[in-house]
């Protein structure tokens, strides 16, 4: 996929305070943020960030307060000017723009949603939603129509003429979102957009964002300090602390393969069931080939592996069924070789990309492990209750 990145950032660095060039030099020598502060008095906001965001992606930038995530996102539209480094929006270097060109980029390419909504208290809901268009000098009628459509899109009907302070927090942020959507810009920067909302409202807004994203395919850069939120909505997640990026990856990679101790500690108390898929918790199944093996082989396999049942597959490792050690023993006792006569086929099955969260209930109720099958019914593995628990607890799942 050789698509040009929608947003690309190269060695982006922000240093606050004086002695910037000295601090930059120390940074390049690998001196830590705390030492640079001690030696020069300069604060490193963001340290040589590199990443790119593809069109249509929800890219979450994660970090605790003071990690530099807000600074990082504000450098993308130069609300904060970087000390060093480059930002490319659709291939164009934002650092090289003059004031007027920069305003144009902000008007047409990037819209922003703020943590505390930042709605103008002197304007009505409709005027707020149309603010970006007003700045562009679009006529009142078109502006109102587009603002109205954007408000419909976020399910805010009938509040056009109210003022922001007459609305609840959740509704206010819908207006904030509508203001960003009315602009028709392809890139949305969302700075802790849902952090000020109560948990129920936050979930609602996340759902709504995902619903809107399905329709509009924006490129969304979402700042959050809530890992559950990041795992829920993010296609990819960037984790940073102390101005430095720790890891960039999809939610699954972050959870199953943390890049360093910091990320590992970070993901310690996350609700893993919401991000882990069957694929990452399944274990290899002991199988026998129905064509080549009879009851004795089956029993032997079970004894070697110390298990009480075994999965039956065909030549191409396609799932056929499941036999129990007691049944197989009885079969041998009867001197029968027909494994199929005792084989059970009513085994619970699932796909590899199903979320563990969706299976939790059923896994706890069924005595037989789930069989994980792909589209062609190949047996990929099975889900043991023990390995699910281990995965939720954050342990490595043995293959």
């Amino acid at each position, binding site marked *: 996929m050789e698509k040009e990145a929608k947003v690309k950032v190269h060695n982006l660095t922000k240093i606050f305070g004086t002695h910037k060039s000295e601090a930059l030099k120390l940074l390049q020598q690998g001196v830590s943020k705390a030492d640079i502060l001690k030696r020069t008095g300069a604060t490193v906001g963001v340290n040589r960030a590199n990443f790119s965001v593809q069109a249509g992606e929800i890219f979450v930038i994660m970090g605790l307060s003071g990690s530099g995530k807000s600074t990082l996102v504000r450098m993308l*539209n130069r*609300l904060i000017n970087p000390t060093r480094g480059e930002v490319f929006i659709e291939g164009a270097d934002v650092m090289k723009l003059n004031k007027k060109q*920069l*305003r*144009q*980029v*902000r*008007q*047409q390419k*990037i*819209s*922003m949603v*703020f*943590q*505390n909504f*930042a709605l*103008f*208290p*002197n304007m009505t809901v409709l005027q707020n939603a149309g*603010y*970006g268009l*007003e*700045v*562009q000098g679009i006529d009142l009628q078109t502006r109102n129509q587009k603002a109205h459509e954007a408000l419909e899109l976020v399910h805010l009907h009938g509040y056009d003429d109210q*003022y922001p302070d*007459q609305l609840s927090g959740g509704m206010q942020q819908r207006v904030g979102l509508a*203001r960003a959507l009315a*602009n028709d810009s392809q890139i949305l*920067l969302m700075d802790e957009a849902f952090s000020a909302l109560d948990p129920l409202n936050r979930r609602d807004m996340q759902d709504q964002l995902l619903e809107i994203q399905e329709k509009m395919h924006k490129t969304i850069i979402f700042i959050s300090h809530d890992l559950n939120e990041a795992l829920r909505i993010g296609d990819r997640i960037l984790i940073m602390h102390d101005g430095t990026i720790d890891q960039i990856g999809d939610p699954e990679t972050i959870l199953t393969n943390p890049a360093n101790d910091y990320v590992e500690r970070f993901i310690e108390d996350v609700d893993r069931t919401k991000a882990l898929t069957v694929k990452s918790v399944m274990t290899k199944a002991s199988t026998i080939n129905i064509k080549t093996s009879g009851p004795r082989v089956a029993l032997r396999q079970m004894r070697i592996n110390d298990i009480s049942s075994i999965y039956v597959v065909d030549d191409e490792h396609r799932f056929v069924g499941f036999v129990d050690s007691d049944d197989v023993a009885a079969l041998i006792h009867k001197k029968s070789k027909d494994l199929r006569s005792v084989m059970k086929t009513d085994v619970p099955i699932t796909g590899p990309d199903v979320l563990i969260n969706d299976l939790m209930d059923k896994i706890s109720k069924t005595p037989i492990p789930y069989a994980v099958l792909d589209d062609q019914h190949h047996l990929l593995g099975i889900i043991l209750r023990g390995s699910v628990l281990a995965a939720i607890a954050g342990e490595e799942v043995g293959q």
Partner: protein
Amino acid sequence: MISAVQIPKIPLADWINALVDWLSQFSGFFNSITNFFQGIINAFQWVFDILPVGVLIIIVLAITYWQKRHTKKWGLLTFELLGLLLIWNLGFWHDMTETLTLVLTSTLIALVVGVPLGIWMAKKTLVQTIVNPILDFMQTMPAFVYLIPAVAFFGIGMVPGVLASVIFATPPTVRMTNLGIRQVPADLVEAADAYGASAWQKLIKVELPLARSTIMAGINQSLMLALSMVVIASMIGALGLGTQVYFAVGRNDAGAGFAAGLAVVILAIILDRITQALTQDRHQH
């Protein structure tokens, strides 16, 4: 032993006099300023002269009624009606309109100069650093002192009175405009920036509307300070209620002085209430 006599006195007064003398050569410049201000004064006075007493009273009552259409108002309306009738009855009506002209002209100039200066101060901290001590100076220097150069440059009459009032009355408007713009929440300014607003768009659509009530409070203060200058201004020939007070002082006539002073108080309260209503936020629920 060193005594104070041995240290030469810094000839500050001589320097100021030299400066005033030097400035006197630009009399053409000062004449055109005088003419300009006299024009504004004449316009105001002309309006007040052609308006019959009853009509002006009705206008004042109507403004108050409209401003307070959602709140209690009858007490204030009664006060305004009785107060203005009392001024008319005491024979101070024309003096009152002259004072009104002086105050409104001074406030208008304070506004035209003060609001842009306040905005500039809010935008540039360097300007704030320079202007703030000048404002302190303007407000704390005894107002009488301004009368001397005012007469030297602008002669006797309404114009020097207006200028002395302007110097004294402008600082609150400047300060409150600066404060109001600086107090606009940073996230709203950032939002305007993030959507690509120009400096002008930001000022007109976001900063000034949000600073509005603070700026109005500053203008209200300026108006009150201008009114406090009327007696002082009368000493250099500015006409109005101040002149009546000044004469009464000269004649040692406590009764006449009190009557004219009461007219000033009534005018002050009416002007204060009307401009205070402007500081309320426009939309209230």
